[in-house]
């Protein structure tokens, strides 16, 4: 990041302030430079989806302009190029999360599909009547419902680890819920509604000491934290491309090869087979066994470009800058009278969930929108968590490394306007 900053002479004040040249970063994101209702766009809904740097947009359109072809079976030049680019993206993902081999990277539509894949294959094979799946109270619906469906089908039991009022997982309680019948632990790395960073490495140690595999929902984490699946030791790790500056419709399931080998296929069709007769089909080897049909080639390649961009900036620099922004937001917004922060874990990233006394989050969202400020208001697909905090919804601002302190200040000013309207 320092080199990028050194190349550009402007914004030295900001660079000195943050050690991070946010203006340079912002120039890479075309969508940020627009007005909404006559106000400069302040995009603070990054947990919902992130924007795309020019390199991602260009990579996808260049693919369609020059290389577009189906993969893995063409004998012609374009197919060869497409295959190479697609498999190249897989290697980028592998390196990005430090998986041992490219075949441990399965391309899916997103985190939701990744978790469903594990539930429908590993889960269906391993979980029997009376067995248990263990999750936490802060899971996104996508890490609740697939397990609920599995438990219903198998007459198994879904156990839920409690959290404290700060939004931190009660680790001792969680460990107590790991029993002889626990077949899988599925836990979010970084909570989308609270910003809590879970101690996933310790959770993996706890679970593994009892022989229980662990799936980590990394939908939020990958864009904000350095993720090393081998250091974590997790068995599965799931994330989405669009939350990490890549395209929508592409995501990743990482699985340890030995587990993936044992799992039955998810969907049947082309590409996932070695040979087919009407009597018997021999499945393809990893990772193709889990990628039936023509995959989302262009967006996988786009995801590769996004990862290239993010690693170019450097996740350590991103994390450090975003922590500063979040601290500034917590301080500035938290100081406004009548504000209640939901999610005050000691280890947090990106997310500021809040309430204003007597004002529904939906009304907050509407008024901020007219100020050009995009936040999310709602239950954030975490209804059980909202229930835990006794609120129907929260307003949520989520920061990215392309946001600025000035934008946080604009949010604070917007919140004061909301209060004025409702005064």
């Amino acid at each position, binding site marked *: 990041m320092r080199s990028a900053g050194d190349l550009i002479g402007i914004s030295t004040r900001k660079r000195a302030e943050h050690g991070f040249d946010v203006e340079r970063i912002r120039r890479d994101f075309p969508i940020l430079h627009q007005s909404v209702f006559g106000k400069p766009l302040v995009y603070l809904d990054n947990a919902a989806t992130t924007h795309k740097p020019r390199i991602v947009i260009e990579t996808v359109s260049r693919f369609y302009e020059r290389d577009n072809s189906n993969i893995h079976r063409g004998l012609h030049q374009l197919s060869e190029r497409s295959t190479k680019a697609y498999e190249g993206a897989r290697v980028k993902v592998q390196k990005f999360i430090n998986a041992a081999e490219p075949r441990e990277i399965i391309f899916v539509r997103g985190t939701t599909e990744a978790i469903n894949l594990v539930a429908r294959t590993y889960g269906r094979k391993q979980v029997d009547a009376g067995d248990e799946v263990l999750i936490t109270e802060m899971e996104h619906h996508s890490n609740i419902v697939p397990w609920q469906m599995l438990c219903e089908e198998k007459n198994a039991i879904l156990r839920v680890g409690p959290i404290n009022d700060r939004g931190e997982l009660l680790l001792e309680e969680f460990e107590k819920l790991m029993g002889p019948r626990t077949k899988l632990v599925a836990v979010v790395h970084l909570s989308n509604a609270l910003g809590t960073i879970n101690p996933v490495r310790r959770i993996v140690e706890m679970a593994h000491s009892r022989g229980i595999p662990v799936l980590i929902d990394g939908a939020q984490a990958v864009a904000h934290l350095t993720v090393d699946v081998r250091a974590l030791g997790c068995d599965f790790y799931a994330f989405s491309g669009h939350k990490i500056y890549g395209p929508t419709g592409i995501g990743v399931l990482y699985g340890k090869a030995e587990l993936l080998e044992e799992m039955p296929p998810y969907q049947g069709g082309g590409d996932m087979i070695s040979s087919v007769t009407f009597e018997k089909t021999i499945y393809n080897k990893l990772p193709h066994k889990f990628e039936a049909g023509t995959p989302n080639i262009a967006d996988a390649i786009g995801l590769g470009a996004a990862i290239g961009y993010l690693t170019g900036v450097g996740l350590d620099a991103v994390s450090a800058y975003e922590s500063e922004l979040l601290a500034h937001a917590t301080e500035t917004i938290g100081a406004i009278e009548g504000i209640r922060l939901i999610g005050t874990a000691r280890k947090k990233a990106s997310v500021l969930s809040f309430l204003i006394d007597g004002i529904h989050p939906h*009304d907050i969202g509407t008024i901020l929108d007219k100020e050009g400020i995009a936040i999310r208001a709602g239950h954030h697909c975490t209804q059980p968590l909202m229930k835990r905090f006794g609120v129907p*919804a929260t307003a949520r601002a989520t920061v990215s490394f392309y946001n600025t302190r000035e934008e946080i200040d604009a949010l604070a000013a917007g919140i004061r306007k909301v209060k004025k309207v409702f005064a």
Partner: protein
Amino acid sequence: MSELDSVEELYQQVILDHNRTPRNFRKLEDADRSAEGHNPLCGDHLWVFVRMEGNRIGDITFYGAGCAISKASASMMTEAVKGKSRQEAEELFERFRRLVMGGDGGSLGKLAAFSGVSEFPVRVKCATLAWHTLRSALEGKEETVSTE
């Protein structure tokens, strides 16, 4: 022109007042009809209770939680339809819906305060939730009304 124009148009004083102190905001013990309404998008969740007197709405209350628009709309609806026949209430709902969709709702009295909703299409559901729930109560339907 103030920058808050359309926002002020949406959150008119009468709406803010009904949000702060909703009228007929309680469960109706001797209700003979009730229905539950839910807006999953933002979590608005309310119940409408009705006691009929012949063909007329003898008493009506509501209860629940939601955004200012949904709450004020429910509150003002209870005032507007009390004493009305089922058909009159239906007709009022039709005109109210035209208003919040940006059309001409005709003479709506205090309910005209909701004209600003039409500038905020995603909030139409908030404004009409109570009315959909009332319709369901009057029809005697059991299932929860959802605006999704």
